[in-house]
């Protein structure tokens, strides 16, 4: 099981390398779709079916948005050589952060023991043991989202609302004019 999961994540990494390094935008977006779908299968192997449903739907919608809104005839590529100094600097920066990351990731416990087993007062044990009795919902993830932690879900709904509002406002054709107090009053005074 762990081997299948490791193989899936390896394929995801290969698809991500293709996404980042290819100069053509269309190929990039297509391999982004491959990354998302492979990740949805990996989520199924990690015993998270609701997240797999959401990941597939969100992947499809984001692919449609990316292709439809940004690709056209004139955005296909011309090859230009990039500077060696720029690439070397980027690789060095990522390598430094990678070194710090490896130090941190070595402190993780072995894969397969969840967080709630390592601490005796973890809240997840309470959620699993008493979730069905206290809320009446067998889906513990939904019970956590909408009963134990409903405040965080309200924050998420607000963020989604603001993102939609921002998108509509950025793409407006004409700005809305509000009457400015100083200018309009002056004009009212001047005209008889």
């Amino acid at each position, binding site marked *: 099981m762990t081997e299948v*999961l*490791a193989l899936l*994540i*390896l394929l*995801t*990494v290969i698809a*991500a390398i293709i*996404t*980042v390094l290819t100069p053509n935008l269309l190929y*990039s*977006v297509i391999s982004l779709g491959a990354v*998302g779908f492979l*990740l949805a299968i990996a989520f199924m192997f990690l*015993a*998270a*079916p*609701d*997240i797999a449903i*959401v990941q597939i739907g*969100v992947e499809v919608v*984001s692919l449609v*948005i*990316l292709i439809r*809104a*940004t690709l056209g005839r004139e*955005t296909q590529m011309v090859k230009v050589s990039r500077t060696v100094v*720029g*690439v070397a600097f*980027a690789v060095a920066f*990522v390598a430094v*952060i*990678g070194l710090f*990351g490896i130090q941190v*990731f070595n402190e*993780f416990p072995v*894969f*397969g*023991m*969840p*967080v*709630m*087993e390592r601490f005796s007062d973890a809240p*997840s044990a309470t*959620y*699993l043991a008493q*979730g*069905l*009795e206290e809320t009446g919902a*067998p889906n*513990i*993830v939904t019970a*956590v*989202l909408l009963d134990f932690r409903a405040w*965080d879900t309200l924050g*998420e709904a607000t963020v989604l609302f603001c*993102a*939609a509002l*921002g998108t509509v406002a*950025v*793409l407006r054709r004409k700005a809305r004019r509000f009457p400015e107090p100083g200018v309009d009053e002056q004009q009212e005074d001047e005209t008889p």
Partner: protein
Amino acid sequence: MIYSLCLLLILIGLYGVVASRQTVKIVISLVIMQHGVHLLLLLIGYRDGGSPPIVDPGQSVTTFAGLAVDPLPQALVLTSIVIGLGVLALMVALCVRLYERYGTFDVTEIRRLRG
């Protein structure tokens, strides 16, 4: 070993953000970083041979609590995926506006043109 593959995914996304010359490529690399972080959150909550955190009708609660994976990272990742889609839409709207204003997706050209 699996954790290091996940770290590799995040680092590839970071390299894409730092070294890309087009705004849409930067957006795509940010999406890859988000995927890596969600995978990491789910990996630390996984129990070996565990079942999804959904109670079956005939199951007793004590066996379920001993067998299920951690539900709390799954709830966090669920909201994070949908928020990622909303933020992606906002970033793509900004890219479209930049294209209309400057005529190109190239970041170096946008920096040079003033006004």
